[in-house]
């Protein structure tokens, strides 16, 4: 019965994803075309031969009515044959580089994903740990310090913290590279998953693993610390609230060790809202990665979008937004399912 409830819940959530994405895509499609400037005139610096420009417009399908362009684009997206052949949906061709947008995006996505995963790990460990410590030492100096840390890290701009880290660990101490996905004098591992840390391990090269980890440390630490502020505050508040619950008092009355009460009872119950926040933050993290990627010259999806906007590369931007949207939707879906699984009341 519970399983049936969960299944229909998942099915509903998946079905809701389709209109959400369609809405997002339509908004981007319209906004891009409302902006002044067009990709064809940007392609021609000196010579603006009308015939050549018209030929290019025709090649790119820009001479068709807007509704036709929209339908063509949606038609491409749902082209299952293309998806099966290439491993990614037909997102059209870039209007500046004339390469497949799907290929471009999926070449950049692993970098963003790797950064997001490691940053999230750092944010969760740091945030939850400090949140628990702060709640245990309520109103003490340590609590104030941790709360201060949470506020500062929440407020500090990512590029500022990034540059500070680059200066300290890269320039002054020389311990870590200031940017890029691997030290400049080390050959990147052969692409299997696109995640350097994984690929170097699959290649059996510990040296490259260490080098890619070194390169990953500063950007993920920067983004992780920034995100941890939110987790610190959330964990602390929820823990304090749960500490006041009757079942905690009962557990203590039964003579359970304080550590068991804290981790086994309080943290477990306080974890549900933290889990929701993890999902939301993971989505936010992709957006936040734009600045981190620029600061650390990280060749991911964030830099791709910024770069393509300046070229009015309609298809590239639409494609990137679709992928971002899809990713955020999947993460939200997973979190919702986990939530529903952990808390049966959700499914009722």
């Amino acid at each position: 019965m519970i399983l049936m409830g969960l299944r229909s819940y998942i099915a509903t959530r998946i079905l809701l994803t389709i209109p959400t994405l369609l809405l997002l895509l339509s908004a981007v499609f319209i906004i891009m075309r409302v902006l002044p400037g067009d990709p064809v005139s940007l392609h021609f610096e000196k010579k603006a031969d009308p015939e050549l420009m018209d030929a290019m417009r025709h090649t790119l399908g820009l001479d068709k009515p807007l509704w036709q362009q929209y339908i063509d684009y949606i038609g491409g997206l749902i082209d299952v044959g293309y998806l099966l052949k290439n491993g990614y949906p037909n997102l059209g061709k870039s209007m500046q580089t004339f390469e497949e947008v799907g290929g471009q995006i999926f070449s950049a996505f692993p970098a963003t994903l790797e950064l997001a995963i490691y940053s999230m790990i750092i944010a969760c460990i740091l945030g939850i740990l400090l949140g628990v410590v702060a709640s245990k030492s309520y109103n003490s100096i340590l609590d104030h310090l941790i709360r201060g840390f949470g506020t500062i890290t929440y407020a500090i701009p990512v590029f500022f913290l990034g540059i500070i880290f680059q200066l300290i660990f890269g320039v002054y101490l020389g311990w870590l590279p200031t940017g890029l996905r691997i030290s400049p004098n080390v050959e990147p591992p052969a692409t299997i998953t696109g995640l350097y840390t994984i690929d170097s391990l699959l290649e059996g090269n510990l040296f490259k693993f260490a080098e890619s980890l070194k390169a990953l440390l500063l950007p993920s630490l920067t983004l992780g610390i920034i995100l941890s502020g939110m987790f610190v505050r959330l964990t602390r508040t929820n823990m304090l609230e749960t500490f006041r619950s009757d079942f905690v008092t009962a557990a203590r009355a039964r003579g359970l060790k304080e550590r068991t009460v804290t981790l086994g009872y309080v943290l477990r119950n306080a974890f549900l809202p933290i889990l929701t926040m993890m999902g939301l933050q993971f989505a936010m993290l992709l957006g936040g990665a734009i600045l981190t990627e620029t600061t650390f010259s990280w060749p991911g999806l964030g830099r791709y979008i910024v770069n393509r906007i300046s070229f009015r590369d309609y298809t590239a931007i639409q494609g990137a937004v679709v992928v971002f949207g899809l990713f955020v939707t999947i993460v939200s879906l997973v979190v919702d399912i986990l939530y529903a699984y952990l808390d049966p009341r959700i499914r009722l």
Partner: protein
Amino acid sequence: MAKTELIIIGLVLISIIIASGTIYYAADLSSKMSSLMQDVSSLTDALEGRLASMETSLIVGTTDSVELTLDPAQAYDYFGWCILQQIGATLVSVKPGSETGTDFVPELAESWNYSSDLKIWDFTLRQGIEFPDGTTFNATHVKDSFDRAIALIPRIPEGAPAGLEYGAIINRTTVLGTYKVRFYLNHPFSPFLGILACRASTIVDPKYAPIAQVNYTAGDPRASTPVAFLGPYILSKWDRVAGRDVDIRLDINPNYWNIASGYPRIKHILFKFYSDAASLRLAIGAGDVDMAFRHVSPTDVLDLQKSPNVKVWWGTGAFIQYLCFQEKRAPFNDSRVRVAVAAALNRSSVCETVFLGLSSPLYSIIPPGMLGHTEAFTKLGDSNYTLTRTLLAELGYSESNKLKFELWYESSGHYPMSADQALLYKQALEASGVIQVTLKSADWASYKKNRDNEIMDAYIYGWYPDYVDPDDYAFLYWAAWLHTNYSNSTQVNLYNQARATTNTTLREKLYAQIDEIAVKQCSVVPLYVSSAWAVTKPTVYGIYLDITQDMRYWLISK
């Protein structure tokens, strides 16, 4: 059994157990030690390998990226041309360190001569040169390369960005012999060697560069650039992520033939790509890269100059910026208004304040050092408010009835420090007391659209030359694509006369006359010319930052 015996047997058994254990652990320890030693040895080998590769490679950090392709028929961006220069060769080239950009030296051509009307150019080619696949270079390769460049441009469905207009200059190319080639030009064209020395004239092997298609980018099955060229390096790796370069590796061309121009001193050039000037500055400051070239900001380069850990190389710049006026309507359809505005500008203030002295005021559209450069616009002066007020008074403008217009600048980083420049120009103009400026900005895409739609009153624009010759600057005064709606047949005639003579004194005179008219008309007003710089580790040598703006990596050593 006696108790003593039992004790002895027990002790023996215990000894055996201890000995076995010891032997076992010793063996295990030995195997672990051996494995550890192997690890240490492999790590040492890896480190030695890394050190060896570091000694023979130059790591270059840049914020550039190849825009689209490394096919000379379509590439039209600085970095694309830079890579092409390392892997390709042209018939002639400019001597490194040239001050004027007109010291041509033989490259694939041994010698050349031209007809008195400058319409027929003959080149005798070097012999014994091979492409990397063993194909012998000859005159047909030259003909095919130029035929292809001319034929391909209109056929490229996406539209070719190259603006060199080869088709308008070259009528046809003829093979006169295995090592002799002739160019018939449509009109007399004295800067022809300049055109031949630029990257668009890189010779390709038609086997890998078919006449009907462009070799696009890395990863594309049609991209076969590594074997199509004759340069000092071979492109051995070109990785792009999401349409931007992430890794480029050049390896020495073992068959490089041009010993006279310098055999490559460094085996591998590794390009690493940073997102912006701040990241690049940190990378060179931390020693992550051996060299940072394009673009370290003026503030950063002045700061780095104080550091003992790096060396800053200075050179001549060729990038210029200028002010355009929309002349199809009032107020700038009157040359007096344009002259009045030009006289009120303050170039020095912009160069000193915005570019920290790393740019110089420009008083001719042709930059200093180049044939035909004059200081013509000094006649109008800087902040010459007397002239501004006099001219505007003639037209009825005064402190109570100010000349009002919009000054546009590009805001997305296509040009350096545009907002700061525009603000200082506004201040200087308004200090005249009779001008009121409204600053307006647009990102590059919108800016170009606005230019084409001719909606901007006055707008700041920039120019980077295709070939180093006044011929590639002087036409800016009336360039149709700037949409200023200015035309002047006298200037065009003078320009064409300068094209038709190799007499440098006469050319200088003709360009000076063009400038004289430009000062009176002020269709376009020169603002400043940039400097060039590169930052390296102190151990890097052999950098030439001359007027060509070429970076010749094969001459660099460390």
